[in-house]
Structures are given as C-alpha cells and as structure tokens.
C-alpha cells in the first residue's frame, strides 16, 4: 500500500479550477518530483499536501491516515520553502528549534536535536548567526536543517534550489540526493527544472494545466513519454518532434521525412507495426531524442534498428563533451548529438545514424502517443 496516497484531488478558486483530479501514489522512502511549467498547479498541489491550502474535493492520505482536514502542524510534515523562509529575527539555532519550541519540547532535548542536525549538515559553526549573515547555500542548509530536525513522515520541498547560482545548485542537488539516500525519508519535491526532476526522483509527475500528464519513473518518463508535451518538456536539448508520413513498402511500414538538400528519408518502422498501420498514408509526429540521432561511429552498438542517412548540416555547436549539429528534417530544425571529435562541418552533407529503437510516434491532432 502506498505511503502517500492522493486521490481525486481537485482545487477550485470560484469557477477557476487549478487542480483537475490528481491521483498519485508514492511508496515509503520514495522521492516524488512534481515538475511542469509555471502555472501548472505543482506548487498548489504541494501546498494542499502541506495544508497551507484547502482542497475542494478528494483526499490525501499519509501512512493510511487522511490528513486532508488537518492543520499544517498536525500533519507530521516539514517543508523547505523557495525563499528558505528563515525567521530573520532569530539565530540559526533559534530557527531550527522554533518548531520544537512551539511543540513544547524541553530545552535540553532541543539542544541535542540541533547539534545532531548541525553535524549532518555541517552548519555547527553557523548556529549563533542571523540568517542575514549567511550566504545563499548556507541559508539553504539551515532551511533543510529546520525540516530535518522535525523528523517528520513527509518532507516537502518547494523549488528549493531556484534561488541559487548554477554551480551551487548542482552541489546542493547532490546534497539533497545524498540526504534522501541516507535518511530514507519520503520526499515530495516541486521544481520546474526537468534536470532536477530526472536526477533526484524515484517517481516523476509531469503536470500541465492542473492535470498530471504522466506519472512514472524517470526512465519511463524519458524513454516512453505519454504525449508530446511530456516528450518536449523532459530532456535537454529537447526531443526532436518532426512531422512525417507513414507509408507502406515491400518491407513493411516506414516513416517518410522531408529532407533539406535531397529526397525524403524513409525510415523503416520495426516495432509497433500494428498501432501504426492505422496511420498508413497519414501524417504523424515522429519523435527522436538528440542522442538517438548521432554519427555512425557514436551510435549505440546494441540498437536493433539503426538507419543511416545523409543530412545537410546547417549549424555545428561544439559543447566540449559533445558536438551538437542542427539539420532540417520534416520541415523542422533537428538537433543531433555527436561525439565531441566528430568531423562535420556546417553547410556540408554528413552521415547520421537514427536509432529507431528510441523513436516514438504521436498523433498530430490529439498529441497522444501512438507507439
């Protein structure tokens, strides 16, 4: 049975519906990341779990107990806020101990708990400082310390890294992941950064307009996106989504993509013939991730269906570890990810390998996944 169980959750402000029926189950010790563009309702969902917003319909259960009607302090949760929300008038120790103080924990017990958390987060030397005397990363640690010291059933993180600079963000991301691994706590984490979602989560819920578009493990979300939104949102650089046409030839179905500087490419469709058969002679959206479109030497040797074609390279972007090449297929710009030392030049034809194991197809009207 799930540890965190959200069922049929709806949130309305008057006529405006923010959350339109959310169903999520998370196992104990899981790390759920709610990800989506701004305005998708992910923060509202987190606030309803925290009890900072009421819910209109549905239920939230933690460890078999419904918490939907409870005051935030009675839910056995701890929350880390985007702005850290450290009380400016109290010292670091005072901030960490405030929750325990409100619960009437005796002073010596508070002291022990503070010391323990300070050791875990290495903030022992900061305990007597005020939040204004701390750097961004230190504030972040203190905010986590305030949550950790409570030892709650559920941790809630509301975009905790978005105020940090890029390098510190990566460091703190690792720190949070390590914290999750060592404590084994159940965490719900909100972010708009899909890389954070991929690296941290055991389960991801991709949200848009108050609806969970897809709920699954990071690998499921990445490799088997349920629709074009998820495919486009997750991954950087984004998945290439191009329009193609399903045609039948002697050797079975294939997808035809228009190509700049040559005739259309025909890629045989190995898998999912049945689903695509209905789309014969119709347009579909062909999706392929940049890393599945590469130079023949860099292609995945284990792939069962590789197709090689010549494409006109328009732009070459060396990124150090990889080289990105932009070409045009099916009327769209397509990014291919090549080895760093791949010998290609802008304005010339180059041979690219399509890993068709990783290709996905969407219906252009409904945007839903076909195969």
């Amino acid at each position, binding site marked *: 049975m799930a540890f965190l169980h959200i069922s049929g959750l709806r949130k309305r402000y008057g006529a405006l519906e923010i959350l339109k029926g959310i169903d999520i189950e998370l196992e104990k010790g899981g790390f759920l990341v709610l990800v989506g563009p701004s305005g998708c309702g992910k923060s509202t969902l987190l606030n309803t779990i*925290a*009890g*900072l917003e009421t819910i209109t319909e549905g239920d939230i259960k933690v460890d078999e107990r419904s918490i939907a009607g409870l*005051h*935030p*302090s009675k839910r056995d*949760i*701890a*929350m880390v*806020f*985007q*702005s850290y*929300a450290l*009380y*400016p*008038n109290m010292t670091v120790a005072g901030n960490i101990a*405030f*929750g325990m103080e*409100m*619960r009437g924990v005796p002073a010596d017990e508070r002291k022990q708990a503070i010391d323990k958390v300070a050791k875990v987060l290495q903030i022992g030397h900061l305990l007597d400082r005020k939040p204004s005397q701390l750097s961004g990363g230190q504030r972040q640690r203190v905010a986590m310390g*305030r949550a950790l010291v409570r030892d709650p059933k559920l941790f809630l993180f509301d975009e905790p890294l978005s105020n940090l600079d890029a390098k510190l963000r990566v460091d703190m991301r690792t720190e949070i992941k390590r914290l999750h691994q060592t404590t084994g706590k159940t965490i719900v984490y909100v972010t708009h950064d899909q890389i954070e979602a991929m690296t941290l989560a055991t389960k991801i819920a991709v949200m848009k307009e108050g609806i969970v578009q897809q709920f699954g493990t990071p690998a499921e979300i990445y490799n088997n996106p349920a629709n074009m939104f998820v495919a486009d949102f997750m991954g950087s650089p984004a998945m290439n989504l191009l329009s193609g046409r399903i045609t039948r030839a002697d050797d079975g179905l294939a997808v035809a993509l228009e190509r700049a500087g040559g005739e259309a490419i025909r890629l045989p469709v190995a898998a999912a013939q049945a689903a695509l058969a209905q789309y014969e002679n119709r347009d579909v959206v062909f999706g392929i991730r940049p890393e599945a479109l590469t130079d023949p030497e860099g292609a995945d040797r284990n792939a069962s269906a590789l197709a090689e074609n010549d494409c006109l390279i328009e732009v070459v972007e060396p990124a150090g570890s990889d080289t990105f090449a932009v070409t045009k297929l099916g009327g769209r710009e397509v990014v291919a990810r090549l080895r760093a030392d791949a010998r290609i030049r802008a304005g010339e034809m180059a041979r690219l390998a399509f890993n068709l194991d990783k290709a996905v197809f969407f219906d252009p009207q409904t945007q839903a996944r076909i195969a």
Partner: protein
Amino acid sequence: MSAATLSASGNQNRWIGRVAIYGLLILFAILYLMPLFVMLVTSFKTMDEIQNGNMLSLPQAPTLDPWFKAWGETCVGLTCAGIKGYFWNSLKMVVPAVAISTILGALNGYVLTKWRFPGHTLVFGLMLFACFIPFQSVLLPMATILGSLGRFGMALQDQIGMTLGFGNPTVNLVIVHVIYGLGFTTLFFRNYYEAFPNELVRAAQVDGASFFQIFRRIMLPNSLPIIVVTVIYQFTNIWNDFLFASAYAGSGESMPMTVALNNVVNTSTGVVEYNVNMAAAMIAAMPTLLVYIVAGRYFVRGLMAGAVKG
C-alpha cells in the same frame, strides 16, 4: 567663442544656481526656525529684559527661573501649582493610547494581509475612510457615547463600588484617540505587512505556531521600522491634540498639557509673563521633539519601506 570661455560661463551659471538654491533654503530655514528661536531666548530672559529689550536679542542675564516657575508655580486657571501635573496627565493618556492603537493597528494589518477573508478590501477601505473623517464631525456623537460610558461607570460604582475606569476623563481620551488613530495605524501596518513575505507565516504555521504566536514571535520582531513610524506619528498627534482634550477633559484634574498651556497663556489676571509662557510651551513641546530625535532616523526609513510596496 572658445571652449574655455564656454565652460567658464557654464561654471558661472552653475554657481548662480547654487547660490540661489542655498540662499532660498537658508532664508526659509531662518523663517521657519525664527519662532522657535524667539521662544527659546524669551524663556531664558527676565521680565525686565523682555519689556525693555529687543525680542530677537540674546538674553543678557540668562536665567532658568521661568522654567522652574512654569513647571511648579504658574497658575492654570485658579490653581497655581505649575504645569507639572498636567504634563503627567498627558503622559498618562498618551502612553496607553499610543501603545493600544499601535498594537491594534499591527493586529489589523496582520489579519488584513496574512489571514485574508472575503471582503478584506472593503474592510480596509472602511478603515482608511476613518483617516479622512474630520475631528469636528466626531465631537458630538463621541460625547454622547462617552456620556453613556460615564453613566455605566456610575451604575458600576453603585453596584460593585468601583467604576473600572468608565467615565474617567483620561480613560475617555484614551478611548477616543485609540479609535481615531486606528485608521492610521492600520494603514501603516497593512502596507508594511503587504510586503512581508508570506512564506515566513507559512513556515511558522508548519512549525506549529498559533495565530498569536506568529504575530508575537515572527511579525512584531520584524516590524521595528513601522512600529517607530507609528509611535512617532501617534505620539505627536495625541500629545498635540487640543480639540478632543478640551472637549472631553477641558477642566479639572485630568486636563492634558495642551489645554493647560492654553489656560496658562490665556490668564487675564496680572502681568502676562511671556518668559514663563514660553518656557511652558517649550516643556509642552519637549516630548514630541525628544521622540523625533531618538527615533527620527527610523521615521524616513519606515515611511519609505511602506511606500515602495503595497
């Protein structure tokens, strides 16, 4: 024309501008400070010197006698015990009135920004309206209400042997000033708390703090600038108030400073002791001056903090 003469004439123009600006500023500063100067020098002069000398000249034989006389001997109406009793009367009225209206304003601002309820803008609008009600229009209705409170006090006296403050003129003035000041204090605190991060309140809620614990432990300790602004504003207004003071405590033991000062100056018997009058006026103005000097630097800062956001 060469570049050198051009820049020279530019410099000259700037000089003329500077002189004009500073000249005007100094002129107005002198005009503004003149009355204070006259009051101060007069209060240190003897009566002979006042009657025979120039109003603006410095005292030839400075004396503190007028100050002592104003404080302890001068006649207010028929009693001649100085203004010291009335000074304390004013303090007894001002301190509770400022404290209560500030605390209530802070509570109002806290509720209006952090515990929003349907219709909160209407409530705030109505409270703002209180800022624009002229004093005079409140006089008679308030007198009726204070009259009822007084009768209630009498009834209590008959029943339980004490009035619990109902009908006491000082208490009455505190009530009036609290009610009248509430619009302003609410405005100050609401605008300040509007920019106060909501996440702090939410964090405290998750930490298990109650409504009043959040107010006392989170909001108030972080409100120093706006508290200073409100205290200065309320203190000055209430201390300087003459209309309510003369209407509801215009005679007798509880008369505040402002009314007493008026009675000192308006005495029709004997020689008008200008030096004593000036000293009394200076004493009356002292507390507000003091509050400005002590907390003044927060005043501008606090006004700005409220003004930028909200």
